[in-house]
C-alpha cells in the first residue's frame, strides 16, 4: 500500500511538471537600459503585454547606465556571440543604422509598417530618420527633447533673474548670480552630460540648418562658425560646478532642486525624474524653457525597438513591437517615463503639464536630431567624441578641439 502511494505521488508530480511546462509556452526577452528611475514605465508596458498574452513569459534584461553607455557594450557581445535578445532598445537614427543595419543584422520592419498603417501615424521627419536604403528598421516608442533648460521659478524670483533666452544673456545672468554668492550657477554631471550641454550650445550658436549641415558633411568642424561653438562652450563651462565628473545626471538635478545651482541643461527625462521620483509639480515647483538660443527648435532623440535577425521567439517579438507602436502602448509608457508619444494621435489628457507643452512644441517646432543620443552620428563618431571633449577640457583650446573633431569626422566618413 505504501509503495503504491509512493508511485502515485511520483506520477502526480511528474504530471504537474509536464502540465506546467506545457502551459508556459513562449518566452520573450527584451533588452534595454531602462533600470532604476526609468524602470516603472517599462514595467507598465511589460505588465500590459503579459495581460494580453498570458502564455508568454517576459524576461526583462536591463543594463544600467544613462543613455545606454554600458548596455551597448553588453549588446555587442551578445550579438557577436550569436545570442541576440528578441528585441532590444536602441536610439532611433544612426546609432542603429550605422552599427547594425549596415552590417545586415536587423529585420526590415517596412512590411509591418505598411500592414499596420504606421507610416501615417508618425511624423514624416521621424520616419525618415528611421529609414535607410528603402527599409524601416525600428519602431519609435517615445520622443525626448534634448535642448531643455531646467530651473526653479521660486529660486530665480528670489535671486531676481529670469531664464535667459540667448547664450550671451545666459553668461551675463550667471555673472550676476555669481556676484550674489552662487558659485556655480550651472550644474553639470559626468562626461556624457558635458556632451549633452555641448549640443545645446552648438544648436544655439549654429542654428538648426548649420547643425544639420555638420552631420551631412556640408559644414566642416573646423569652419570658423563651428570653432565659435567651442569658444562659447568654454565660457559657459566657467560657470559650471568643478566636481561634475563625480555626479550622475540625477545627482545634478538634485543639486538644482536643493538650490545649490540655478540652471541645468538636460533632456526631458529630468521631468520624469522630478515628477515620479522627487514628487515635484511641473510649473509650480520646477520650470523649463528651450535652451538659450534654441526657441522653436525641437532637438529630438527617440528610444526605439527593433528585431535582430535570427531571434528565437520571433512571433513574441512581433507582438511586442505591435504593442509598442500602438496608441494604447505609447500612452501607457510615456506618461510614466516623462516623454511624449511618437504617434501624432496620442491622448493628451493622460500627460502632465510638461509633456503637453512638449507635445505642442513637437508638432509645431523645427525638428533636428541629437548627437549624444545617437540620432545624427554613428557610434564610431560618438565614441570618439569623448576624446574631443577631453582635448578641449584639458586646454580650453577651441581650435584644437575643432581640428580633432574634423579629423575624426574624416576618419569615420561622416555624411557619406
Amino acid at each position, binding site marked *: 500500500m505504501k509503495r503504491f502511494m509512493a508511485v502515485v505521488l511520483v506520477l502526480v508530480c511528474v504530471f504537474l511538471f509536464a502540465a506546467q511546462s506545457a502551459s508556459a509556452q513562449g518566452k520573450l526577452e527584451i533588452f534595454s537600459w531602462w533600470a532604476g528611475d526609468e524602470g516603472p514605465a517599462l514595467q507598465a508596458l511589460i505588465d500590459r503585454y503579459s495581460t494580453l498574452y498570458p502564455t508568454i513569459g517576459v524576461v526583462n534584461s536591463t543594463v544600467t547606465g544613462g543613455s545606454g553607455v554600458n548596455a551597448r557594450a553588453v549588446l555587442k557581445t551578445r550579438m557577436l556571440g550569436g545570442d541576440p535578445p528578441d528585441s532590444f532598445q536602441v536610439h532611433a537614427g544612426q546609432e542603429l543604422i550605422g*552599427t547594425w543595419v549596415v552590417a*545586415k543584422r536587423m529585420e526590415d520592419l517596412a512590411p509591418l509598417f505598411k500592414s499596420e498603417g504606421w507610416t501615417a501615424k508618425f511624423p514624416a521627419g521621424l520616419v525618415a530618420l528611421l529609414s535607410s536604403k528603402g527599409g524601416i528598421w525600428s519602431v519609435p516608442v517615445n520622443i525626448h527633447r534634448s535642448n531643455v533648460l531646467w530651473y526653479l521659478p521660486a529660486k530665480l524670483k528670489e535671486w531676481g533673474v529670469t531664464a535667459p533666452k540667448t547664450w550671451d544673456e545666459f553668461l551675463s545672468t550667471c555673472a550676476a548670480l555669481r556676484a550674489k554668492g552662487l558659485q556655480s550657477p550651472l550644474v553639470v554631471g559626468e562626461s556624457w552630460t558635458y556632451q549633452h550641454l555641448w549640443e545645446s550650445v552648438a544648436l544655439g550658436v549654429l542654428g538648426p540648418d548649420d547643425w544639420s549641415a555638420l552631420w551631412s558633411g556640408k559644414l566642416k568642424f573646423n569652419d570658423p562658425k563651428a570653432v565659435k561653438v567651442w569658444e562659447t562652450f568654454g565660457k559657459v563651462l566657467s560657470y559650471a560646478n568643478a566636481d561634475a565628473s563625480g555626479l550622475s545626471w540625477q545627482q545634478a538635478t538634485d543639486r538644482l532642486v536643493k538650490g545649490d545651482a540655478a540652471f541645468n541643461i538636460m533632456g526631458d527625462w529630468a521631468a520624469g525624474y522630478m515628477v515620479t521620483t522627487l514628487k515635484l509639480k511641473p510649473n509650480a515647483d520646477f520650470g523649463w524653457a528651450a535652451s538659450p538660443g534654441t526657441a522653436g527648435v525641437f532637438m529630438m532623440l527617440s528610444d526605439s525597438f527593433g528585431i535582430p535577425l535570427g531571434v528565437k521567439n520571433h512571433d513574441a517579438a512581433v507582438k511586442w513591437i505591435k504593442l509598442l507602436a500602438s496608441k494604447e502602448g505609447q500612452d501607457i509608457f510615456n506618461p510614466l517615463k516623462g516623454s511624449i508619444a511618437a504617434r501624432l494621435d496620442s491622448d493628451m489628457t493622460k500627460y502632465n503639464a510638461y509633456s503637453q507643452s512638449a507635445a505642442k512644441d513637437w508638432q509645431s517646432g523645427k525638428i533636428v536630431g541629437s548627437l549624444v543620443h545617437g540620432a545624427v552620428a554613428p557610434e564610431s563618431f560618438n565614441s570618439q567624441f569623448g576624446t574631443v571633449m577631453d582635448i578641449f577640457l584639458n586646454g580650453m583650446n577651441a581650435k584644437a578641439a575643432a581640428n580633432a573633431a574634423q579629423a575624426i569626422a574624416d576618419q569615420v566618413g561622416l555624411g557619406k
Partner: protein
Amino acid sequence: MKRATWKSGIGGFLVLLPSLALLAVFVYWFIAKTVYSSLTDWGRDPAQALALKPVLRFIGLDNYRELFTGLIDGRFRQDMVSTLFFTFFFILGCLSLGLVLAILVDRKPRGEGLFRSIFLFPFSLSFVVTGTIWRWLLQPKGGINRLPTLVGLPPGDFAWLTSRQQVWRFDWSLLPLFFALLLALLFAFLALSALRAGRRRGAGIAAVSALLLGLWALGPGRSLKLLDFPELHGFNLAFIGILVAAIWQMAGYTMALYLAGLRGIPEELREAALVDGATEWQIHTRIILPLLAPVTLSAMIILGHISLKIFDLVFAMAGPDNGSTDVPALLMFITTFRGNQFAKGAAIGVILLVLVAVIILPYLRSQLRREELS
C-alpha cells in the same frame, strides 16, 4: 623497468592533455587571433565591423603606427604615460608600506595575529568593492575632504578623482630621447661595473654603446619628430586617489611576503651584527634588506603585472569616461565595445601583452635557470 617508466610517461602525458588542450586553445590560440586581428582593418568599415561574416583586409602595422603617432590617438599615448607613472608609484608605495608593516609585525607585539589579519584583510576584497568604497570616500564634497573639519580646520579642497591637473609635463616627441639617454646611462653603469670586475671586453662594448646612444640622443635624436605638433603628457593628479586605493589593497599582501622573508632570516645573523656593534638602522639596511632582495623582486614582478593591466579598480572608481584616470585596459574596452574598432582594440591589447611579457619573461627565465642549476 623501461616499460614501466615509458608507461608512466604516457600516463602522465594523458593526465596533462586536457589542461594542455585548454591552454592551447583559450590562451595561445586566442593570443594568436588577437595579434592577427590587430593587423587587419576590422572596424574601420561599419558595414563589415559587426556583420555575420566580416570581410577583413590585412594592413600590417598601420594600427600601431596610428596609436603611437596618429593625430586622434593622443588618449592612448597619455594612457601609456599614466600607466608608467602609476606603476612606478604603486610599486614604490606598496613595497615601502609593506616593508614597514612587516618589520613592525615581526617585532611580535601583543595582538600580532590580530594586526596581521587587519593588514591583510583588504587583499581579500575584490577591486570593484575597493573601488566603490574609495570612490565614495574621495568625493570632493564628502569623505576624506571632511576629515580636517573634525579638528576644526577648513575642509580639504583637493579634487581627487575629478582633478584635471597635470604635473611633470613633457612633449611626446621627446620620449625616444629620454629612453636613449636612460639606456646610455645604464650602459655606462654596466661598463663601470664590468671594469671593476675586470671584464675588459664587456666593459669596452658597454662603453661604446653608451657613447653611441648618448651621441645620437644629443644630436640627430633631438630633431626626431613623432608628431606634427607638440603634444604634452604628464602625471595626472587624479591618479593619486587611485594610488591610495590600490596601495591600501595591496600593501597587506606585500607585508605578508616580506614577513615570510623576514622569518627566513636566521637570528644568528642579527645577533652577530649586534655583537659587532651595528646600529638598528645598519642592521636593517646592510643585512636585512639585501637578504630580502629576492622577495622584493617577486613582489615587484607581481605588483608590476597587476598595475600594468589594471581595469576593474579604475572602472569602479572613476568610470570609463573620465579622461584623467584613463588606463590602456579601459581604453581597449571602450575602443572595442563602444567604438566598434575591433582591430585597434586588439592592437592596444597586444601592446599591453608585450609590456607585461617584457617584465615577466626574463624573471621566469632566470627562475627556471636557477632551478636547473640547483
